[in-house]
Each structure stands twice: as C-alpha cells, then as structure tokens.
C-alpha cells in the first residue's frame, strides 16, 4: 500500500525539537522534550501514548493553544512551509479552524449549550468566510448532511443537550470540516463512547478525511484505533517520541521496549510470555541523565542510565529512541525472566 511510504518532500506539518515546560526553577516540569514529527498531506497520522505522555500537549502547541502556565522553550513548527512561531495571535486565529481544525474528546463540552446547533455552526463558518447569514446557515445544514445526521433542518434548530453522545461528536466533526481544513486534529475523539458508536464515528471521520484529502492527526491511547485508521504513527513516553514508523512496522516489528510491552498488553489468546512494562508514571520534575524509560525497562543497562538515547533511524522510515533497539529487534535479547503472577494459595 503506497500510503505507508514516508511523506513526500514537503510535509504539511513539521514539528522539530519541540520543548515545552510548565513552571520555572526547581518546580518546573519538562512536559515535552525534543518532540519531532512530520505529517504528510492527506495522511492519517496516529499518536499513541499513556496518560500524561504529552500527546495532547504536542497538538495544542502545534496550533498555539498552550494551556496556562506552559511555555514553549524551543523548537520549530512549520505548517505548509510557514514557520508558525513568528505568527501573531491574529494570524494564528485565521489559521485555526480554517486550515487546521480540532475535534476534542467531549463533544458536549465543545458545543455551546445555549446556542442552537445551526447557529453556532454558522458563526463558526462566518468567522473565516465573508458571506450572508443565510449562506452560512445553508453551509451548516450541508455540513450536518455530510456527517449523516438525519433530518438536519430540525437538528439545526435544536440544542447540544438534545444530542446523544455519538450524535454530538458527529456535529463537532461537521463543524470542524466546515472550512475543508488541510489538517484535522482529533484528540481522543471517541474515548468514553460505546464500541458501536466509536466505530461509527471513526468510520465516518476516516471516510470524510479520505474523500476530502484532509490530513488526520489522531491522538489516542487505543492500539485498535491506530491499527484501524492510521498510516503512520508516533509513540510518546514521558514527553518524548520513542518510536516513529509506519503502522505496519509498529505492529509487526516494534523496536522500543515500551512499544513492545504495549503491544504485549493487547491480551491475545494463548499468550505465554508477556513483557511487563507497567509501572508508575515517570517523574517529570527531575531530569534524569539517561533514558526516561530506564526505570521500567526490562532490558535496562548501565549505558541507558548514563546517557539519553537519541531518536535514531534503524531502517528506512523506522526510528526508535533506544540504545538496545537493534538487538531487541534482531531477537538477540530475550525478555528477562520475571516473576510470573502466581495464583495465591487457597486458605479458607
């Protein structure tokens, strides 16, 4: 499949060596440290990681919406050949929503509770396009129709609280796609939804971006979402990208021990050995000299504690941040024996 090639010479979005810090002095938290990624035009890019790994923060940084107290300390963000850090807030605003749109987890939270759905969609349209209210409203109705909402006219007169969760998420998607953006960022768009609704919403999202040629940046902690909808993926841990490759490679040939452990936690049937990587979240307030995953890594060596490994290309288009990644992949190292969970003795 051709879409698993690396993106062409000019990617749509390039993030290079991004660093974001919360607070200052001894209490500061290095939330993002040297995050680099590229998203090609029209590709589906997945971002995977556990809670607090910095997935959402990376996306928010990219569109200039850093949360309060966070500061970008280094790095470049280039969108469509344009360096974003030089832009004024006004220029950023004209980009957000029009060129780059965002779908958040909580649809009802993203919609205004007091404005009719059609009206708020029309406002969103008129924010970037000079047109009459009637034209904007027409566009809003068309948007609702595109996401398969039955009886859009009636729905447009309704309010957000009248929508089911799945329906709400469809409205938010319709709103995000009003301006035919080139990049759609979807941050955990379906967590908390039931499986049937999750599949429906993601199938729809996937279909729409494919038809319109929109690039999709899908942020999730769910391996199933990545496998089903993405071409390439980056895995984050403790504010760093630890592996970056095609989704095929990620599932078939993971190189970073964290990613290997993550794949082992999928609960396949009849699995005899599993790499155990669960542990407390990393402490981002202290800067460790070595690899940030070392404290949970089954393969850890002295080298890993002394120096932080760089994100290096192992084979074409497949990068991992690990000193022992080559050996891990070549099967030269087996997972170290660890105490298997033993059934407790029956004593009544």
């Amino acid at each position, binding site marked *: 499949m051709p879409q698993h090639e690396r993106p062409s010479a000019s990617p749509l979005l390039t993030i290079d060596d991004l660093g974001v810090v919360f607070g200052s002095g001894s209490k500061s938290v290095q939330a993002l440290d040297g995050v680099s990624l590229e998203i090609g035009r029209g590709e589906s890019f997945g971002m995977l990681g556990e809670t607090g790994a910095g997935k959402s923060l990376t996306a928010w940084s990219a569109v200039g919406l850093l949360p309060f107290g966070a500061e970008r300390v280094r790095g470049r963000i280039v969108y469509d050949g344009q360096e974003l850090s030089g832009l004024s807030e006004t220029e950023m605003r004209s980009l957000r929503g029009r060129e780059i749109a965002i779908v958040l987890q909580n649809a009802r939270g993203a919609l205004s509770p007091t404005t009719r759905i059609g009206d708020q969609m029309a406002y969103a349209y008129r924010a970037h396009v000079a047109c009459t209210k009637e034209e904007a409203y027409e566009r809003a109705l068309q948007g609702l129709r595109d996401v398969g909402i039955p009886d859009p006219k009636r729905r447009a007169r309704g309010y957000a609280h009248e929508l*089911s969760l799945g329906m709400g998420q469809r409205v938010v998607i319709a709103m995000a796609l009003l301006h035919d953006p080139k990049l759609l960022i979807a941050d955990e768009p379906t967590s908390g939804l039931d499986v*049937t*609704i999750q*599949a429906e919403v993601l199938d729809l999202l996937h279909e729409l971006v494919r038809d319109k040629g929109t690039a999709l940046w899908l942020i999730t*902690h769910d391996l199933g979402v990545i496998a089903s909808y993405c071409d390439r993926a980056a895995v984050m841990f403790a504010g760093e990208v630890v592996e970056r490759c095609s989704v095929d490679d990620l599932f078939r040939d993971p190189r970073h021990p964290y990613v290997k452990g993550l*794949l082992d936690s999928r*609960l396949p049937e009849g699995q005899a050995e599993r790499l155990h990587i669960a542990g407390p*979240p990393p402490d981002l307030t202290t800067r460790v000299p070595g690899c940030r995953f070392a404290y949970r890594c089954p393969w850890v060596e002295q080298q890993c504690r002394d120096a932080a490994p760089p994100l290096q290309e192992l084979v074409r288009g497949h990068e991992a941040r690990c000193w022992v990644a080559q050996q891990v992949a070549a099967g030269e190292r087996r997972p170290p024996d660890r105490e298997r969970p033993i059934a407790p003795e029956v004593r009544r």
Partner: protein
Amino acid sequence: MSERRTAADAARNNGRPADPAAPLVRVRALMRHFSLDRRHRVKAVDGVDLDIPKGTALGLVGESGSGKTTLGRCLLRLIDPSDGSIEFEGRELTDLGARDMRALRSRMQMVFQDPLGSLDPRQRVFSIVEEPLLLLTDADREERRRRVVEMIGHVRLSEAHLERYPHQLSGGQQQRVGIARALVTRPELCVLDEPTSALDWPVRAEILELLASLRVGFGLSYLVISHDLAAVRRVCDRIAVMYMGRIVEEGPTQALFARPAHPYTTALLSARLEPEVGARAARRRLGGDVPSPVAPPSGCRLHPRCPIAVEDCRRVPQELLPIAADHRVACMRVTGDDAIDWPPDWQPGGDLKLTDAREETGG
C-alpha cells in the same frame, strides 16, 4: 478437587450440604424499574434469568444504559429489585431482612467502577482494606492486621502501600486496593463493575492477569460488567449480552466470540477495533439509535433496528432459547448456530429515531 470444595461448603453451611448441582447464583425473572413520574418508568432490568455456577466467571456486556450495572447491583442487593428472584447457594436473597443480608455480605463483594472515587480519600489504604473485616467479621485487631497484610500481598502491593492515601497511588494501584478490599473477607462471589476502564493498556493487562489468578487461587466466582469486550474475553468463561434491560444472548466465551448468533451481538462484536493491522472485519451496523428506555419497542426490543426482523418480531417478545448446548439466544430468526445472513446493503426503514423517543419521554 470438586469433592474438597463441596466438603468446605458443607462445613460453612453448618453441616447442611449445599446442593452440588445448584449454581452459586441463580437469578430468575429479575426486574428493576425506576419511576420517573406517575406515568413513566424506566425498565432498567426487565426480566433477566441467569446462573453463575461456582468458580466460574460470567461477563456481562452491553452498551451504556443497557442495565448491566443495575443488574450487578441488584445481585448484591445494593439496590432492591422490583420483582423476581435471586438465589445465593439456593437461598432466596430478595426476602432477607437487613440483618440476614448483612451476614451474607462477607461472601459477596463488589469492585467499583471508578477506582479513586470509590476509595475514601481521608483513609489510609490499611483502614480502607480493613473496613469490611470490622463491619462484617468478628476478627480481632491482630487477626485483621494479618489478613489485610496478606491480602495486600495477594494483589501485589507492598506493606509500604498500607500507609498511603488513595491519591498517592497510581490508577492501577488504586484498583488493586479496591480488589483487596473486596476480597479481604474471602467472598465467594465478586461483582466487578468495569474493572479496567480508565486504565492504560499495560496496567489493564496486569489487572486482568491478577483477576484471573485470584479467581483460581481463591476459587472465586465473578460477574464482570464491562463494555471492554477484550477484557471480558480474557477473564470470563461465559458471556451474557444485554440490550435494553434484557439478556439477548448467553453462551461460552469462545463460541460467542467465534459465532455470535443474535443480530445485536453480531453488530456489537463487529464494531470492535482489533489492535492488529488488517484485522478490520466487515461492520454489521444496526439502524438508528437505541430507543428511549421509557417507551421500549414492543415484541423484540431490537426489531426497529434489526436487519432480519419480520412482522412477528414486532409483536412477540423473545425468549432465551438454546441453539446449542449451553448457548442461548433470544431471537426467533436464529435457529441453529449458523451465522445469520446479514443483508449486505441493508438500510433501516422506519427506525425509531432518538428524537422521536425523546419526544415520547417528554409527552
């Protein structure tokens, strides 16, 4: 093995031998209705039959609002059922008084959905795990300490954790504390409500492995309530699928995942996003949304959304009937254990839209 267990049961029942054939839990025609106002009631659980044989794990799956959690809570009488019968080791629970029920509580426990929210933020882990022993047993101080320490080891926490407060623990550790609290009285039945939601994948895998090993070690029976199909598949022997307050299919885990029979189960399983590249199965989509539980459809509750519904489905309520040994389905259109023919380009006609249901609610 089974002989030993039966002997142990007999000892616990004060010499009265339990019927070895009787399941640990037997639920018949269970109902729980909630009144909204004088005219409107939500039938959260509406006629459920199920058995949990000793030492087995039953998974209860279904979407939000299908009544899974209400059923689980009724089982332990955390809420009282409106009608029907619940037998625990052949003993009817629904007419037990508060005192008798309390005496049974140490033998049936629950692990709650939200690990942090279900732990008292002002108590240390030790007191949290000790509390059921204080309330439900007459163990003395030393005995309680011993049992708490032992149980905290079984859930793979260390004694150092006993002095911590819940907010000082990670999500996985909080869930382990919840499990320790439930198991410290050595119950025979444990109801687990969404034991792995809100956990990251590696932690989820560890919790599921822990639950599986505890079950073997303690000879526990589980009712696992979850919308995480992969999780119940891992832990449970049998699966029951709920839709709008009723069980629509019930069978052995392997058979049910390999050959779902009921149209609802088929649709539910086809919506899974398998964490494998290229594993995407054809979606089996139902029409429309789940109708309002205040005005459930007549006959089979799935009929307005079902691709294979016929006129009779609208009129005749469906009973759970066996299609194979140990595999029951509530669908008149399913006869053998062959997969149903899902019309490839099926479009729901005349479906109940959510709006319509809501308007009925309002009226």
